[in-house]
C-alpha cells in the first residue's frame, strides 16, 4: 500500500508539475473590504465567553476537539430565565490542521450536529480514500488539466466527507462563532489566519473561499502534501487587481505601527504583524514583495492556534472586538480552553545503543521544534491570563473590568498522571494514537475518554460549573476547584 501511495504521489507530482499553478482564492470585486457579520453576544452579562484553541494531530486532534465540545454540551445553567448549554457560549475557535476539521464543522453545522461528525468523518477510513485517489490515473489527469497539486486530493476528501463545497460565507453569519483557521505562510513563517480582515489585506473575497481550502491550508503537512497556493490581489503583478484594490487606504493601525517611533521596541511581534499586513497590502516601504502566498500546516508556526486567541483577547484589532467588551464591562467571564492533542509515543531511541537513523532524525526535526514553539506560545497565554486576573483584582472603582473572571483550561494528554493506574493506562494508550486521517474505533474511544476526563477533572472547569450554578455535575469538588483555580 505504501508503494502505491508513493507511486501515486510521484505520478501526481510529475503530471501536475506540467501545468500552471491553480491558485485557490478569488479577487475581491465591487467592494473595498470583506464584511464581518459575526458579533459577540453580550446580551446576558453572566454568560461566559468561551475561546477555544484546537491543535493539529490529524484525526486524533479532530476527535479530541470533538469530544471536548460534546462534553461542553452536557452542562446547562440558567441565564436570562432560560436554560443554556455551555457549548452555546463558544465564541471563538482558533484551530490548526486536524483541529481545523472539527472547528470548521462546528462553525458550519453548530452544536446540535456534533454527533454526526463521528459517522461523517471520524468513523470512515479516510486514509484508504486518499490512497485510492492518489493511485487513480483519473486523479492525475484531473490535477494536470486544472493545474492543481497533491493538496487537492485532501481538499476533495474534506469536501466529500463534511464540507460539501460550502464556503466561508456559511461560517461568516450572525449568530455563528468566530472560526479562525490558521495556516503558515511558507515564505515569511507568519501565521495566516483565515479571517475577513486578513483577506482584506490580500484583496481577496473571503465569502467565496471554499471551507475545504482553508482546512487544507491549515493541514498541509510539508513534503507529504503540496502547499495551498494563493494569489495576492493587492499586488500590482496580479492582472485582475481591481482599481478598488489599488485605491484602498492602508488601515490606520498598520500605518501607526510601521511608522511609530517606539512600537518596534515595545512589542516587536505586534510591529512584525503590522509590517506583514503592510507587505500583503503592498504598502509603502515594504519589507517583502509578496505577490503569491503558499500555505503550509499552521502547526509549523503555532500548533494550538494560540496566536489568534492572544490577538482576540488583547489586540484592539481583534475581529471579535473582545477587548472593547472587556474594557466596557459587558463581558465579565471568559474561559480560555486550549486543547492540545500532541502525541508522544514511547521511542526506542532512548533505549537503544544504536545511533539513531535518518527516519528517527527526521521525526525529531519535524516534531521537536513544533512542540517547543507550541509550549512557548501556550506559556504566553498563561501570562496574559494572569495579567488580566491581576488587573481585575487591583482595578480602581472607575474601571469597568473589575469584575472580570478568567478561567484558563488546558487539555493535554500529559496531564494524565502516571501514579494513578487508570490514568497511566489511558495516557500510554492515547499518546500512541498515530497522526493520520483515519482513527480506529478503539483509539477513538480512548481519545473521547481522555478528553472528557481531562475537562471534567480540571479545577478551572469545575470552578466555572460552580460559579454558574450548573446542576448535575456530581464530580465537582468544591475544595479542589476553589484551591486549584482563582479566576
Amino acid at each position, binding site marked *: 500500500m505504501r508503494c502505491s501511495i508513493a507511486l501515486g504521489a510521484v505520478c501526481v507530482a510529475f503530471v501536475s508539475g506540467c501545468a500552471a499553478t491553480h491558485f485557490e482564492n478569488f479577487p475581491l470585486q465591487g467592494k473595498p473590504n470583506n464584511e464581518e457579520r459575526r458579533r459577540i453576544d453580550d446580551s446576558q452579562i453572566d454568560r461566559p465567553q468561551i475561546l477555544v484553541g484546537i491543535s493539529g494531530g490529524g484525526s486524533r486532534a479532530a476527535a479530541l476537539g470533538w469530544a471536548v465540545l460534546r462534553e461542553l454540551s452536557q452542562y446547562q445553567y440558567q441565564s436570562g430565565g432560560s436554560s443554556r448549554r455551555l457549548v452555546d457560549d463558544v465564541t471563538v475557535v482558533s484551530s490548526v490542521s486536524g483541529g481545523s476539521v472539527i472547528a470548521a464543522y462546528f462553525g458550519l453545522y453548530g452544536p446540535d450536529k456534533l454527533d454526526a461528525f463521528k459517522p461523517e468523518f471520524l468513523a470512515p477510513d479516510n486514509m484508504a480514500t486518499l490512497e485510492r485517489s492518489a493511485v487513480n490515473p483519473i486523479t492525475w489527469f484531473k490535477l494536470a488539466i486544472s493545474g492543481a497539486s497533491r493538496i487537492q486530493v485532501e481538499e476533495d476528501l474534506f469536501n466529500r466527507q463534511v464540507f460539501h463545497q460550502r464556503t466561508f460565507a456559511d461560517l461568516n453569519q450572525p449568530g455563528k462563532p468566530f472560526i479562525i483557521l490558521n495556516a503558515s505562510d511558507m515564505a515569511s513563517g507568519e501565521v495566516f489566519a483565515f479571517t475577513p480582515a486578513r483577506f482584506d489585506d490580500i484583496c481577496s473575497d473571503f465569502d467565496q473561499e471554499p471551507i475545504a481550502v482553508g482546512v487544507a491550508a491549515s493541514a498541509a503537512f510539508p513534503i507529504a502534501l503540496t502547499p495551498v497556493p494563493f494569489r495576492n490581489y493587492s499586488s500590482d503583478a496580479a492582472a485582475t487587481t481591481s482599481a478598488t484594490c489599488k485605491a484602498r487606504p492602508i488601515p490606520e493601525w498598520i500605518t*501607526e505601527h510601521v511608522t511609530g517611533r*517606539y512600537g518596534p521596541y*515595545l512589542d516587536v511581534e505586534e510591529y512584525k504583524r503590522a509590517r506583514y499586513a503592510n507587505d500583503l497590502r503592498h504598502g509603502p516601504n515594504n519589507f517583502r514583495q509578496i505577490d503569491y502566498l503558499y500555505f503550509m500546516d499552521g502547526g509549523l508556526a503555532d500548533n494550538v492556534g494560540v496566536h489568534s486567541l492572544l490577538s482576540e483577547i488583547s489586540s*484592539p*484589532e481583534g475581529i471579535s472586538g473582545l477587548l472593547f467588551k472587556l474594557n466596557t464591562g459587558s463581558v465579565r467571564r471568559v474561559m480560555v480552553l486550549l486543547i492540545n492533542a500532541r502525541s508522544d509515543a514511547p521511542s526506542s531511541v532512548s533505549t537503544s545503543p544504536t545511533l539513531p537513523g535518518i527516519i528517527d532524525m527526521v521525526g525529531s526535526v519535524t516534531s521537536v521544534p513544533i512542540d517547543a514553539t507550541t509550549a512557548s506560545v501556550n506559556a504566553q497565554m498563561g501570562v*496574559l491570563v494572569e495579567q*488580566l486576573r491581576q488587573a481585575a483584582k487591583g482595578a480602581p472603582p*472607575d474601571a*469597568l473590568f473589575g469584575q472580570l473572571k478568567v478561567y484558563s483550561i488546558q487539555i493535554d494528554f500529559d496531564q494524565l498522571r502516571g501514579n494513578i493506574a487508570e490514568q497511566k493506562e489511558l495516557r500510554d494508550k492515547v499518546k500512541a494514537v498515530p497522526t493520520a486521517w483515519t482513527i480506529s474505533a478503539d483509539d477513538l474511544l480512548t481519545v473521547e475518554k481522555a478528553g472528557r476526563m481531562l475537562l471534567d477533572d480540571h479545577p478551572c472547569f469545575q470552578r466555572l460549573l460552580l460559579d454558574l450554578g450548573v446542576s448535575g455535575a456530581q464530580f465537582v469538588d468544591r475544595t479542589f476547584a476553589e484551591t486549584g483555580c482563582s479566576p
Partner: protein
Amino acid sequence: MPKSRVPKPPVPKPLKPEANVSLEFLLVTFPEERSVQANGSNVGFTNHTLMLPADEYNVTLSGAGYAPAAQDVVLTGTTVMQPRVVIFSKP
C-alpha cells in the same frame, strides 16, 4: 560587634511577568462619555481605566467637538492604579 539585622521590606511581586503581550493601562478623560479609539479601533469609554497591550497609539474620540484632534500616546510602565492619563477637552 555584629550589626543587628534589620528586616528588609518585602519586595513587591511584579504585576507583569515577562511576555510578548504586556498589558498596560490608559485613562482618557473628557467631560462626557465617548468611545475611545486607539489606532482607529474602539477600545472602551472615556473616564474609565482601559487595558491595552504595551505599544504606541494614536488616541482619538468618537464624534466631533473635542481637542486636540488626536494624541500620540506611548503606553508603557503603567499599573492598573497608575494608568497613563490622557486629557481631551471641549474646544
